[in-house]
């Protein structure tokens, strides 16, 4: 035990341990001018799913498009929290758009525009981004869509 801890113990002060079990995931992490945003889904602000199901099974492509839009809206809350003022954003860099897909649903790119178009419409050319739009198995809480993003801030 170090000297300071010994003295504190002698003072009768016990230092508690900060327990981060189950709490290690951040909504975003900043690295220099980049902000890495965690995966977001079509959630409300409490993280409750606004839509659930598999695209191509329970959900239609139109619903998938809407799921993308809802995820964009939820992500904007995190983005604003991360950057303070949306004008602090230089441009959007890269999105990873993943749909829980089944049946014969293969139209992920068109449906991911539900998410991507929000940013181009709001930010113009700065809202454009590199992107992959793909399928996967079940998402957390059975949402149909999850997306993460990398954003560049103004220097």
């Amino acid at each position, binding site marked *: 035990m170090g000297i300071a801890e010994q003295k504190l113990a002698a003072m009768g002060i016990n230092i508690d341990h900060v327990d*981060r079990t189950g709490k290690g995931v*951040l909504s975003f992490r900043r*690295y220099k001018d980049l902000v890495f945003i*965690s*995966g977001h889904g079509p959630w409300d602000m409490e993280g409750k799913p606004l839509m659930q199901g598999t695209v191509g099974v329970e959900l239609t492509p139109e619903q998938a498009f809407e799921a993308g839009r809802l995820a964009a809206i939820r992500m904007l809350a995190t983005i604003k929290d991360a950057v303070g003022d949306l004008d602090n954003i230089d441009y959007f860099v890269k999105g990873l758009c993943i749909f829980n897909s089944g049946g014969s649903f293969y139209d992920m790119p068109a449906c991911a525009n539900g998410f991507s178009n929000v940013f181009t419409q709001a930010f113009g050319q700065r809202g454009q981004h590199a992107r992959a739009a793909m399928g996967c198995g079940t998402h957390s809480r059975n949402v149909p869509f999850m997306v993460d993003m990398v954003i560049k801030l103004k220097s």
Partner: protein
Amino acid sequence: MSVAERRLERIGLTIVGDDNKIPSGGGNCKYKIHDDLLFITGLEPYGEDGKPAFVGRLGREYTLEEGYQAARLVGINMLTIIKDALGDLDRVDYFIKVMALVNTANGFSDLPEVANGFTDVMTEVFGERGMHARTDLGATNLNNNVPIICDAIIKIKQ
């Protein structure tokens, strides 16, 4: 002894570095460094013998608790690679972003609770600096049919 290794001791682990025990997924590239960024390849829950210690899917072969343990093993494997890459775990500044791929069946959707096995190892060892942005995805299949794979992008101290 480094701060990180003292914390490892407290949770009953010693990390001696990879020493080529952990197989890499083809191309033999377990990590890459660029500037102050460390990219770690997607890692499986390998056991001491270099073979996956868990094979199967959440919702079928494995329960949430078992998936959590598999994810912890991925975290421990990653620590050996980080030590190999940086020489000293204290050279980790902080974790930036993690992909957690969970191999699922029968609609298993408690992905964050499984992936927390990995994240909890990092916060136990690195404290706040072990926290990270993370994306959890459910896979219909993973290499070697393991239940979980995690990668990481990490910031290195200059």
